[in-house]
């Protein structure tokens, strides 16, 4: 039973981000800001990324986390927030599109000191 609650703590995006920040690690937050059609995770879902590419939480069923993490690492470098869009209407759909056929917009921002 205790394991259950450890698992919960590991899943806590905001607390994990605060811990990373406290340890002096670079970090970024990705948030689903809008969705069209079927999408695996609702608006407000969040993914935390640290400077080594460690992930906590999710913004999809695993289809786009890799691409989002790549942008997040860039945001950590240049300090610019960005709005990403993934979906079948997107040119890169075959690479990192959503298998479910929906579209999501993900806002990526660096955690500032």
């Amino acid at each position, binding site marked *: *039973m*205790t394991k*259950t*609650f450890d*698992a*919960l703590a590991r899943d806590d995006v*905001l*607390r994990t*981000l*605060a811990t990373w*920040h406290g340890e002096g690690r670079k970090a970024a*937050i990705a*948030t689903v*800001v*809008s969705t069209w059609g079927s999408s695996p995770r609702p*608006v*407000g879902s969040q993914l935390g990324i640290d400077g080594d590419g460690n992930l906590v939480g999710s913004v999809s069923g695993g289809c786009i986390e890799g691409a989002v993490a790549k942008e997040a690492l860039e945001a950590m470098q240049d300090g*610019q*927030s960005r*709005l990403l869009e993934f979906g079948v209407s997107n040119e890169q759909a075959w690479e990192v599109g959503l298998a479910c056929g929906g579209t999501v917009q993900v*806002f990526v*921002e*660096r*955690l*500032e*000191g």
Partner: protein
Amino acid sequence: MRASTLDAILAARAAKAALAVVTRISDGAQCTFDGSNVDGPMSLSPTQIEEVSGRMRDDRSGTFDDGTLFAQIYNPPLRLIIVGAVHIAQALAPMAAITGFDVTVVDPRGTFATEERFPGITLSDDWPDEALEALAPDGRTAVVTLTHDPKLDDPALQVALRSSAFYIASLGGQRTHSGRLERLRDAGFDAAALARINGPAGLRIGAVSPAEIAVSILAQLTAIRHGKSAARAAA
């Protein structure tokens, strides 16, 4: 996001208070809104404050003002009050906690509501009506009674029925449930009030073990939380 904004979100969560974070998509500028005060380098117009307040009420994060602003709503978790620290509760409490509920288990029988049986779960050994009066169920609260004992279940249900709890359920077979409804009718509750009780609790999925019964109750609770009224008909 500034680290101070992250700290504000975590502080609000610890205090079980609502907080909205509003982001301007074009440049990432942000402010927080706690229901009365806007804080941070970005300001909000009265119309925008109205919009964000509505979203806090509806628990609805999203973009507004033609997609230029995004409000992330951090509301305190939904609450689940379980009456009866019985075997099913031992499965239901941690499952509901993983689902995101703030769970309290109420049982005045000291041997049942122990930390050993419910690690990490808030426990109350008050009499159910007193415990529920103190917890004051609201529209973001679910109440489930599991004791089968009218002395414990009925007082809890009476408080729950006088509240705006969004889900009320009571364990027990059809006959137990009929008896329960009769007693509550005698206590002055009308048909509309009694219809709010999901009884026997849970969706009909052939659940047998305590954990399976917990799944059926949590499934029904989830359906009703998201406005799937068909869940009642299917039960």
